[in-house]
């Protein structure tokens, strides 16, 4: 893996919705991310790919204020958000769907969605209905305990909960992991639609072929550093990248 010696070739953008500059972050004393740069423009669809343990999830968590911040800048919509608490970041208009354990198992589907809008005084009915329209199965199962739903349904619920506040940017950590093929397709389609409705997407995916095909732009992360940043399709066709990260 160490053959790739190319240093960061990342373009920076001026008008991005989310801009991460030279971010250092980790867990406790352990630094994972080194000088990571990353941009997401308004309404853009960006993915991060890379080997296991590269720090992809750590990037997402860092944006959301869940890691130990060690340096660099994170700006969202022109405002600095590094060091804020997650509930404050939510106020800024970012939603986050973690990689695993992303529903409250003993709460019902409806209650899970209500929790998504906790920071509002009242749960907006139209927001709830919008989620139900997007994921009809959730409306059907509104009273069911989330913990008893199947993997795919839980993934939809988690996404629905993050959409309750109609965020400008949605962070998705491996949304297709563990889904059956029909659901994988379905999931990617839904993400496309969410994106089409104007929500910017930052997504981590191991299902790189699908992800790269659909996204606008992609970053490759290795050992906590940016390696590449390119159009999804271009990356998909780069033989070096294919060999190293996409399994030939």
């Amino acid at each position, binding site marked *: 893996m160490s053959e790739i010696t190319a240093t960061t070739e990342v373009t920076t953008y001026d008008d991005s919705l989310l801009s991460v500059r030279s971010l250092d972050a980790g867990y406790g004393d352990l630094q994972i991310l080194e000088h990571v740069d990353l941009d997401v423009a308004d309404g853009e669809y960006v993915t991060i790919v890379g080997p296991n343990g590269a720090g992809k999830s750590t990037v997402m968590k860092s944006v959301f204020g869940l890691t130990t911040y060690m340096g660099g800048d994170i700006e969202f919509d022109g405002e600095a958000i590094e060091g804020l608490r997650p509930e404050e970041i*939510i106020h800024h208009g970012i939603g986050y769907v973690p990689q695993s354990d992303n529903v*409250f198992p*003993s709460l019902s589907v409806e209650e899970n969605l209500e*929790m*998504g809008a*906790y920071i509002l005084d009242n749960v907006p009915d139209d927001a709830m209905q919008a989620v139900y329209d997007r994921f009809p199965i959730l409306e059907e199962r509104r009273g069911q305990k989330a913990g008893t739903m199947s993997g795919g349904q839980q993934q939809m619920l988690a996404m629905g*909960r993050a959409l309750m506040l109609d965020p400008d940017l949605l962070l998705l950590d491996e949304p297709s992991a563990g889904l059956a093929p029909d659901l994988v397709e379905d999931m990617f389609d839904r993400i496309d639609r969410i994106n089409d409705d104007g929500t910017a997407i930052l997504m981590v995916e191991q299902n790189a072929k699908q992800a790269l095909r659909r996204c606008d732009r992609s970053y490759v992360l290795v050992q906590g550093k940016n390696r590449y940043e390119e159009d999804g399709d271009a990356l998909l066709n780069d033989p070096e990248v294919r060999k190293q990260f996409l399994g030939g």
Partner: protein
Amino acid sequence: MEPYARGRRLVRDQPGLVVVAVAALLLVGDLIGKLTGGGLTPARFGGFVWDGLVIGLLIGLAGIGLSLTYSILGFANFAHGDYISWGAFSGWAVAYLLAGIDRYAAGGLLLIGAGDGPAPGDVGVSITNTPLSIVAGLVVAVAFTVGVSLLVDRVVYRPIREADGITLLIASIGVAFALRYLIVFFFYSGRQGVTDISRVPSYDIGGVVINAHELTIVVVGLALMVGVHLLLQRTKLGKAMRAMADNRDLAQVTGIPVEGVIRTTWILGGGLAGAAGYLVVLTQGTIAYDLGWLLLLLIFAAVIMGGIGSVYGAIVGGLVIGLASRLSLIWLTGDLSSFAEPVAFGLMIFVLLFRPEGIFGGVSTA
């Protein structure tokens, strides 16, 4: 044939349950025998039941807070008993002050009559004689204990919020020691009379003597329980608490103000503990620095028997423990009467054998 087969299956699958059922039947039979045969007067039986209900209600009241903090913060708070004690001391110091300030020096009153302070009979606090100071004391007990639990949370638990349950549990043992002996530092280490029993009216209901303080406790205790129930059912707070008990990290990510909910949990748990401590003194009439600590194991037994995290479990568990510790005395007489407390513990262990998660375990009712 059908019931026979069912019975056989029951014996095979749940032999323990059958044994318990048989034992329970025998006890009930024996009880009826004693009641009709005159070995036990109905009045005495009623007295046991009433006694058990009052103490059980208090255990349940105190248990709600323990159960809430247990499930939401993920640790067994061994300092809970000492919150109860501080509730008692802070509340009664103020009740004494208000009841006697027109006649006695403030110092002795604030120490609840310790040292050269006035005697209970002189201050004369009782619900009928000095209702206002009793109510004021209750309010102070709640407020003060809320303050103590928030302060302790800020200083002790918050810096180690992410630590595992055992670390927090042990920190709480430290808090317990410190709080308990601070009472000794400021007050005293003995047991002291507080209320004026000569001014507590009592009523004879079918031979069972019920006094005004016990009635006060039942009324206040039930009111508080209903209040908690409504608070958790009618607001999204209850759901947020359940969400946090499920998965605190996710709650944070979802935008639930985790620290805020934790604070509310302490306010509820601490307030109820303070109220329970204050009311315990109202019924037993005496106060001691370790009164909460002595109750703590019984409260734990109640909470665990009811199922951790369940408010109703705590209440039911408290009543069961209270009744068991009193009703067992029908059989445990003479030398054996010291086994009342072991019986309560034994009952808890027994329940856990059949329902390892507690009576209401796995059912979230808050």
